[in-house]
């Protein structure tokens, strides 16, 4: 029996959605445990063995919390913002193959789709900041627009280096091209692009040292200061989904995706992919818990004066290289 394509995609999409939500829940625990070890603490411990049920307890708590809408908020915008924020963050997984043939859709413009959709989150973010009618939230929304516009460009340029080297926007084709050599090991261009990608990822995910839009010591909680309960949970979910999504993309573009011993079996391949993505996630987390936040003008200066020119040069170099030597084939 074969399912009609629509039903097949709906089922796969449903599974992927749930996997993503589950991953978000447990990635928070991973981060908390990792941060705790860095800070000579233990971290969540009491809910379940070694705190393994802590994320579930947290999710339940957020669901049960009272949902407060400030009286002066713009109700429509305020209520819609978490959903508008969440949808693109989840949608980025639509074109992400977890292993050969294991994914919702392996589009021939997969990378482009991913990058385009992921930058849509700014709309929800700005709606939340504006609709809350709170000065902290407004300032945070202003910062968000500044920062995300500045960092999306280097982010895209860095992510396009492997695309140029492969000559394809299809994610599975990019992975196949890395069969012999991961792009992170590609001489000079690969390493520089990977570093640029990591820095731009930090900024695009609003993580310390680039978390000026959350900036809880200045703006309390930034654009989500007025959100509580399930709406807050949705924003948090979206943020972490975005973070995991970019980690997966980084692993796919630079670390060879699902390639590894025994990767012919889809599940083993998916496991490799997950491990590599978590490696990137932990590097990002490591940076987060060891740096202080930098100022808004300094963040913009880093982007426009350093990262953007550097990534443009890198992309041109990669293009020149490919023009001379032809695309990289495994």
């Amino acid at each position: 029996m074969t399912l009609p394509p629509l039903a097949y995609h709906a089922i796969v999409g449903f599974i992927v959605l749930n996997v993503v939500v589950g991953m978000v829940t447990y990635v928070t625990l991973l981060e908390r445990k990792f941060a705790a070890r860095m800070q000579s603490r233990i971290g969540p411990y009491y809910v379940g063995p070694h705190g393994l049920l802590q994320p579930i307890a947290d999710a339940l708590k957020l669901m049960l919390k009272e949902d407060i809408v400030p009286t002066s908020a713009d109700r429509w915008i305020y209520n819609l913002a978490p959903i508008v924020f969440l949808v693109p963050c989840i949608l980025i997984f639509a074109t992400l193959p977890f292993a050969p043939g294991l994914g919702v859709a392996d589009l021939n413009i997969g990378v482009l789709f991913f990058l385009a959709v992921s930058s849509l989150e700014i709309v929800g973010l700005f709606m939340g900041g504006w609709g809350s009618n709170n000065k902290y939230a407004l300032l945070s929304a202003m910062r968000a627009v500044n920062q995300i516009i500045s960092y999306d460009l280097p982010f895209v340029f860095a992510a396009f280096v492997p695309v140029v080297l492969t000559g394809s926007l299809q994610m599975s084709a990019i992975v196949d091209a890395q069969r012999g050599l991961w792009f992170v090991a590609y001489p000079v261009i690969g390493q520089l692009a990977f570093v640029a990608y990591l820095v731009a990822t930090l900024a695009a995910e609003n993580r310390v040292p680039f978390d000026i839009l959350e900036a809880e010591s200045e703006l309390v909680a930034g654009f989500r200061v007025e959100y509580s309960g399930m709406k807050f949970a949705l924003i948090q979910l979206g943020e972490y989904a975005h973070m995991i999504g970019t980690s997966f993309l980084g692993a796919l573009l630079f670390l060879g995706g699902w390639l590894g011993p025994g990767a012919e079996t889809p599940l083993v391949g998916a496991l490799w992919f997950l491990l590599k993505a978590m490696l990137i996630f932990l590097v990002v987390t490591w940076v987060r818990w060891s740096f202080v936040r930098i100022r808004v003008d300094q963040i913009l200066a880093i982007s426009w004066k350093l990262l953007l020119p550097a990534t443009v040069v890198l992309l041109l170099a990669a293009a020149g290289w490919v023009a001379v030597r032809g695309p990289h084939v495994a």
Partner: protein
Amino acid sequence: MADTLQRSTVEIGYGGSERLTMNMGPQHPSAHGVFRAVLTLEGETVVAVDAVIGYLHRCHEKLAETLTYVQYPSIASKTDYVSAMTVELAYVAVVELVGKIDVPKRAQYLRLICAELQRIASHCLWLGTWCMDMGGALGGGATIFLYAIRERELVLDLFESLTGARLLYGFHQVGGTRYDLPAGWEQKCRETLSVIEQRLDEYEAMLEDNAFFLVRTQGVGVISRELAESVGVAGPLLRGSGVAYDLRTAAPYSSYGEFDVRVPVETAGDCYARYRVRMAEFRESIRLVRTALDGLPEGPISSRPGVKSVGQVRIPKGEGYSRIEGARGEVGCYLVADGGAKPYRLKWRGASFSNLAVLPHIIPGHKIADVVAIMGSVDPVFGEVDR
């Protein structure tokens, strides 16, 4: 808003036209207690700031008039609850000054040891909270905070085994100290100091090799030497602006004259200079405690008999002022005695209070993110500001 603009002392010109008045505090993650800063913003730039204090006023000076000289030291410690030893010392010092009461040598050394340990503990808290202001409770700042608090706990453990209390000690009494060192305390103290000394190197490596920390602190919130002297800031702020003034050498008390106190001075006057001064003070305090432990004389710890009734200390009519170099600067206590068992009038001078007065001069022109960095570098304790 009009009121705000009139009351602020410094305002810079700015090309924009739309202004936003934002209350930072009294309930705010970086309020360091209950500080309220009314910021006037143009975009991200602060053009005027109005500092509002008084949210933690607890009538400490009036309270002193209702409590006897025996009772009050443990209340005095609640004015600056982050360095309780220092304020207790300021109070008993002024009572001893007015009452012309001698303090045995051993008690003076014990007071010095506690004051310097307290400075270490207080600076630990400052380092942690300041980094948390800049780095966020969900970022690298929290990491430094937890490290610093870990070291502060070691000092508090020492105080606990000495006095039985961890925050507000009641260690000092008129004429000496209440407790002598328990057995093994000296050894434990030396071990703690070596641990902290070692960890200080780690902090410095973590912070000073970090470009992001440097760009957040260098050149931010510059207090010029002239400004520092005219506003009357004290402690690390003053020494960070190039003035080598420390009461431990300028007006020695409690045997400080017998020690070679080295006063760290930086000339830049920015947040980083204040950071450097405090880091040097950490090491200086460690050295002083070690020297004092080496030369700790034997003898009684108090020139007065043990406390039997709360009214047993009576001070003859007179008045006087004592000054102590606390962790945040000059802690002063002015006492008017009328011959009874209670002060007629008591006045506190808190270093945090005079240090806060510099904020309206240095904040305008900075970004919002710098406001919290500057606030943290001033290291205010609001118990001491509002009293």
